[in-house]
């Protein structure tokens, strides 16, 4: 138990060292019925002295989380998978409806409105930041 606690503390310490200056705010998930994928939204701030690149995301509550972007072109909507999003030092990127979004697929259990779901953002070089995403209903905007 003590060893586990020590491990958690060291893991937290490690992640805070690695991810110094990277913060996430306004994180929420639009939960949809019928087992269809949910959209995840947030703003990522890079207050560190170096550029960072977001390369992935995962959550213990979903089988798969992907970085996506909606593209509007000639009257059609298209979803693009995104491999890498660069955020310059002092910069920010916002995932918002109609733009960048997380696609959260195949929830492992029932997702309750109003609950908080941890999502870990993964950066090139291996740094990670975990944020709590608030679960909102289909008509949230």
């Amino acid at each position: 138990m003590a060893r586990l606690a020590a491990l958690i503390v060291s893991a937290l310490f490690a992640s805070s060292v690695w991810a110094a200056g990277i913060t996430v705010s306004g994180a929420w998930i639009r939960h949809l019925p019928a087992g269809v994928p949910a959209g995840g939204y947030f703003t990522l701030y890079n207050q560190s002295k170096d550029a960072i690149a977001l390369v992935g995301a995962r959550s213990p509550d979903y089988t798969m989380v992907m970085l996506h972007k909606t593209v509007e072109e000639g009257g059609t909507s298209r979803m693009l998978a995104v491999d890498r999003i660069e955020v310059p030092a002092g910069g920010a990127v916002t995932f918002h409806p109609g733009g960048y979004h997380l696609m959260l697929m195949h929830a492992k259990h029932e997702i309750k409105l109003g609950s908080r779901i941890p999502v870990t953002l993964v950066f090139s070089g291996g740094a990670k930041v975990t944020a709590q995403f608030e679960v909102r209903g289909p008509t949230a905007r």
Partner: protein
Amino acid sequence: MLQRLMRLLAMLAACAALAACSHKVQWRTDNIDGLMPTLDFHMTDDSGKAVTAQTYRGKIVLLYFGYTNCPDVCPTTLAKLAQALKNTKNHGADIQVLFVTVDPKRDSVSRMHTYVRAFGPWFVGLVGTPDELRDLTKRYRVTYSYGKPDKDGNYEVTHSSAVFVFDGSGRSRLIMVPHDAADAITADLDQLAAQSGS
């Protein structure tokens, strides 16, 4: 004397022009009055009932194409429409949103039912046979295409982002696009309802 009379006439003309202007309807979304074919289709609604355009005559119809495995733009559009309809004078009582799936392979009638009901009472999900879907999409020059399935069989669908609006007689009236704000949609639906005398 003649000069004064002329000035009076000019003033009257200006007033008349102004009055005419104030009666002219200004639309905030795109006015396509009669430019697209009258609403016409045969499909199955989300309760499993066979429906046609006639089923919805007398109501303002908003027609939108999408699919349920669409985590961003489809629910974002439906959520915006829900807010816009709720804010209309009649709270959308005279309006029906028809959400037509362009992915009938994955979107069953029952899945559509669960999905659209979550957005509010104004939404009806429509599922067509391949022929029915082709007829309706061709009629409004709506395009859709499927991406390559990944190893789990998931695939993405490219689809038209416009919302087509028809009045109670099935006449095409407006097109709404993703950048139209909810309050612009509310204002235009109220104007359309006022013209329909409902």
